[in-house]
């Protein structure tokens, strides 16, 4: 009895130790990158010897960096605008239909999440090469939309789970058509999930590197692509500054999305 208790307390100690280790491992990059970004040094170094905001000023002073950031934001915004309606509509269809086709549609739509991004990137690259869509903003938007739809789909489906579809039928019996029933009855109730999924779509595009690496170039270069190139050529702390800003932005959006999904009652 006593031995059992001791062993279990040892086990729980080990388990919490492991949990803490995992958490540290997950947040470590943040604790390294953010201080590095405030380094006064010419090179990426940790820990920084002196603090300075110079690399942030460097970023905002460089037209190359700001243009890339602007391109990334535009692409993320457009991706969000495309992927959200597509994903929500797909989730709605899959949720309401009981046909075998809807299960197949679900699998196909989730495919970009299962196939390695590098494979997706190569595939799109060859298709775009044929139709001349490489290095275009529209091309990247379409590719990012494809990658973002699974996130929207999952989030919206979880929002629809537990939603009583009889409500839509009730609305129809009361005199509104199906679209109005969705807009007036269903959408307000899954609003949180829809907003969360839009934010996920936005962030997924903003962070995306692999596909952008293949498809974007020159003036259509996204921020992560430029960072990747910069990392290879000249290692300076501007990248750490950008990373820090991206981390803050993603955290803020992610938290907002979590609040959005939680609110759904």
């Amino acid at each position, binding site marked *: 009895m006593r031995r059992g208790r001791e062993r279990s307390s040892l086990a729980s100690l080990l388990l919490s130790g492991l949990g803490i280790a995992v958490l540290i491992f997950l947040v470590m990059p943040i604790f390294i990158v953010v201080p590095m970004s405030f380094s006064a040094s010419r090179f990426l170094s940790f820990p920084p010897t002196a603090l300075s905001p110079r690399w942030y000023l460097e970023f905002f002073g460089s037209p190359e960096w700001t243009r890339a950031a602007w391109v990334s934001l535009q692409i993320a915004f457009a991706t969000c605008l495309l992927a959200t309606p597509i994903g929500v509509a797909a989730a709605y269809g899959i949720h309401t239909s009981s046909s075998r086709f809807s299960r197949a549609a679900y699998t196909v739509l989730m495919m970009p999440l299962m196939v390695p991004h590098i494979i997706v990137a190569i595939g799109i690259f060859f298709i775009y090469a044929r139709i001349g869509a490489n290095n275009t903003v529209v091309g990247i938007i379409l590719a990012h939309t494809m990658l973002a739809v699974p996130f929207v789909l999952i989030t919206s489906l979880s929002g629809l789970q537990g939603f009583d579809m009889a409500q839509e039928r*009730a609305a129809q019996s009361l*005199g509104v*058509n199906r679209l109005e029933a969705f807009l007036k009855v269903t959408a307000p*109730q899954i609003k949180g999930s829809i907003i969360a999924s839009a934010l996920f779509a936005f962030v997924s595009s903003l962070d995306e590197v692999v596909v952008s690496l293949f498809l974007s170039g020159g003036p259509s270069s996204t921020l992560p692509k430029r960072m990747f190139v910069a990392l290879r050529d000249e290692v300076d702390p501007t990248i750490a500054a950008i990373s820090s800003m991206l981390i803050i932005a993603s955290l803020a959006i992610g938290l907002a999305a979590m609040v959005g999904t939680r609110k759904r009652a």
Partner: protein
Amino acid sequence: MQRFRQDHLDTTENPLAIEVRGITKTYGPATVLDDVSLEIRPGEFMTLLGPSGSGKTTLLNVIAGFVHPDRGRLLIGDEDVTDKPPHRRGIGIVFQSYALFPHMNVAENVAFSLKARRISRAEAGPMVANALSLVKLEGFGERRIDQLSGGQKQRVALARAIVFQPKLILMDEPLSALDKQLREHMQIEIRALHERLGATTIYVTHDQREALTMSNRIAVLNRARIEQLGTPFEIYDTPTSAFVADFIGEAVLAGVSRCDDYSVLLDGRRMMCASKVPIGNDLVLVIRSEKLRLAEAAAENQIPAIVRKRIFQGESHLLFAETANGLTFTVRQPSHVESDGLLPGEGGSANFSLHPAHTVVVRRDPKAEY
């Protein structure tokens, strides 16, 4: 557009007749409605009664417009509405799950149909108030849906379905989520509301007592077909099939053979029947436990038996009886100080009699298991 009275939800002037003509609906290999035809009179309270999977809810959904039949037509009034979408049928529906809109308060829920019909707020206000008062929820307009009890939600669902003065109201097991006492109370209330509004009402339930309590007529559904259509009295007292006899009331179905048009042989005894005995060699006699009486000497259709078990159930005694040849049946006798002493105890013997009017013979249901 339909004209609305501002402050009165009184008798609907022209309740509508409904005609279901040869409706068939299949899902893959399963036939849910098999060539079903049914005529419902204007202003009638018609109940679709049946076990789960009998097709009653599908039939309701066909009438509501949520399910399109493979074959057959549906007429509401004189209009063929088979291809009309649900939102243009103007039918008030009460759903089993209530399907209230949780993001709106009570008044907004009730006013939803009025807003959809672009009725001004000034006009809608009194109509909502009137509908709420009809279901005894005056002053509940500002409440949130999650602040309501089950019974109150049920009333809001009712108010929402009647506020736009539909000429046809459908109810899909609206009371199944309520406890027994509240359910029985609401049955009486819905019945009174129907009498007051006068709209044709189609009610779906699997609860036979509810059907008997509320309906003008009952359509008993079984395996995608209507087994019997009739008044509660007809359905209960003169079932025309073994399924209906077994589904409604407390009955034992005992195999019998035909003697002539008005008598059968049960357990070696001749039983007289008030109505004509059907032709067939698969006949069963419907022995309803409360129709059996302790026989007086001259009574017709006597069945001598031994009481194997006697159980007191409050308002009545339930006796398990067995004849010399091993035929078993149950007898229900009201409990009263004046008659309790006459009841045989366990192991005692008695003559039970079945009035010829209650000696109902039907054909055995070939597909059913008893």
